[in-house]
């Protein structure tokens, strides 16, 4: 019986020829990433760790520290990396949202297993990695022992056909899938097909990241020429891509015609069966617009924002907050002139952090406010007050809506 990408990766890591759906397997973990929250909330300096070379520490959720508790976490993180000789330490200033830093530094490698204390770790699936979020106790345990267990889940295969139109992004592809098919709880997502060639790496990462929003376990892509070009610029050693077997038995195969897609918007409260083509959405006035997070704070997202905003002004009564996904994205965006175009429009460009996306700092919503966000998650209360409403769309749609003052089809705002 053929295996999916994930089944093959888990089998290799478990030292097995074959794994089957439903099985529990114990796997060696290739790379584990600790984030700042771990050190602020659940930490004791361990007596020993499995392998300093398979560990990275990334400061992202609460930087610069908005509280003494978070600052204390930073103190512990710095002491830990010094004590154990962790070379891959991304402190404030060399930092970014962990999934962006993972991508920039080639820490998510084809065919390998990556774990991290953040639910959007499935982002690494864009690079053919079996990547998933685990809780803080489990990541601590993997740090110590170098391994953990997985249950092999059934897989939904998304067969992409047709060519992605201009102005349609990975966000729109994902929202279409979430709207049409709903949750994938206890299932893996696997993407592929002839249409994939028209989907650039930043869009693949948006899609993989948001696998968590439909409750999936893993979300993976194959390595094609587009991916190989990305990886070769970052990999420090040879990698082994994993393709699915031709005779793989998927739970179901779902065809997505990219050419037929238009911009999508999710209504407040989640994305599953709650996202519609923008032509069907109400033109709600907005108070806050946000472009950022591991899903949409990439350089290409900032380019889109800059192109829409250049020479225009954010509508009166609207706040537009733009958060680069890493310090590297931030500096690249400055050099490319994106930050200037965004800031001159009246938007705020913040330092890189998970901040507003999880309602912790730098853009929290008040009661009665309406937000349109290009970030990861639109649960009730996610970005602040439970009495705020969070719509979700692409950076293109969010930037255009910030100018219009209400949710608008970006194709009506010519670049």
């Amino acid at each position, binding site marked *: 019986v053929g295996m999916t990408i994930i089944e093959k990766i888990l089998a290799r890591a478990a030292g097995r020829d074959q794994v089957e759906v439903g099985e*529990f397997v114990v796997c060696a973990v290739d790379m584990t990433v600790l984030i700042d*929250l771990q050190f602020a*909330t*659940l*930490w*004791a*300096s*361990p*007596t*020993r760790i499995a392998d300093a070379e398979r560990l990275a520490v990334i400061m992202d959720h609460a930087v610069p520290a908005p*509280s003494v*508790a978070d600052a*204390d976490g930073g*103190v*512990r993180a710095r*002491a*830990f990396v010094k*004590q154990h000789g962790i070379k891959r330490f991304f402190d404030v200033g060399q930092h970014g949202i962990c999934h962006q830093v993972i991508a920039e530094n080639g820490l998510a490698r084809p065919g390998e297993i990556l774990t991290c*204390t*953040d*639910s959007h770790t499935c982002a690494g699936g864009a690079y053919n990695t079996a990547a*998933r*979020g*685990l*809780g*803080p*106790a*489990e990541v*601590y*345990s993997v740090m*110590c*022992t170098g391994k953990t*267990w997985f*249950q092999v*889940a059934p897989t939904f295969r998304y067969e992409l056909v047709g060519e992605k139109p201009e102005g349609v992004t990975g966000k729109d592809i994902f929202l279409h899938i979430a709207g049409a098919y709903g*949750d994938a*709880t*206890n299932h893996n997502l696997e993407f592929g097909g002839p249409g994939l060639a028209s989907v650039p790496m930043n869009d693949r990462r948006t899609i993989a990241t948001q696998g*968590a*929003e439909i*409750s999936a*376990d893993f979300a993976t892509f194959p390595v094609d020429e587009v991916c190989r070009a990305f990886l070769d610029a970052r990999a420090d050693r040879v990698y082994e891509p994993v393709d699915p077997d031709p005779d793989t038995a998927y739970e179901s195969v779902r065809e997505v015609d990219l050419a037929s897609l238009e911009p999508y918007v999710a209504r407040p409260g*989640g994305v*599953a069966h709650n996202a519609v083509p923008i032509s069907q959405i109400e033109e709600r006035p907005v108070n806050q617009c946000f472009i950022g997070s591991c899903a949409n704070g990439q350089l290409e997202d900032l380019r889109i924002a800059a192109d829409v905003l250049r020479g225009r002004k954010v509508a009166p009564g609207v706040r537009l907050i733009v958060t680069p996904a890493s310090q590297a994205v931030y500096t690249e965006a400055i050099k490319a002139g994106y930050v200037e175009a965004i800031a001159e429009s009246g938007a705020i460009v913040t330092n890189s952090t998970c901040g507003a996306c*999880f*309602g*912790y700092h730098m853009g*929290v919503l008040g009661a009665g406010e309406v937000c349109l966000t290009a970030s990861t*998650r639109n*649960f*009730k*209360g*996610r*970005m*602040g007050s*439970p009495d705020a409403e969070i719509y979700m769309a692409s950076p293109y749609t969010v930037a255009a809506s910030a100018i219009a003052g209400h949710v608008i089809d970006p194709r009506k705002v010519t670049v």
Partner: protein
Amino acid sequence: MNDVIEARAWVVGDSVDTDNMYPGFAMKLPLEEAAKHIFYDLRPGWTDQVEPGDIVIAGKNFGIGSSRPVAQLFKQLGVAALVAEEFNSLFLRNSINFGLPAVTIPGVTSTIADQDQVVLNVRTATIEKPADGTKLAGSPLPEFVLEIVAQGGLLPKLVADGYIPTDPGRVGRILGSPPAAGEQRPEA
């Protein structure tokens, strides 16, 4: 951990997410205060009604969302177990790894009502309502996972195996209790 838990059940619906149990603002609070915000919007006042030993029963896709350790908050309130029609896998692992039993039993929310007295067997994944004799069976967790729950989650095992230093201040923090007064940060 006892395999059999006799408890009062609190029943919530489908897709109850982690932001509804451990909202962003509560992440800034000590655990004992954060625990007062579970279901803060879904079911205001619930944390004053729940009593140690009670269990929580949910519908499908329970715990979709973040890796934030919601189980630590339930344990602060003394919740003895979670049961759901279906769990988000990250949430299920997170519960088990903090020593909170998480049992999948399809059909449970149409059989058990809020405030019902139930008998839950964590090992066999069965739940019974003695009042009318109704019994439902789910999918049992494998032995090695039940073992993690039985030992109180992953951290006590790491302490026992010598990965975590045993001086009280440090262990206090990692096991989720507030730091002792005057606790030093030995590593800082």
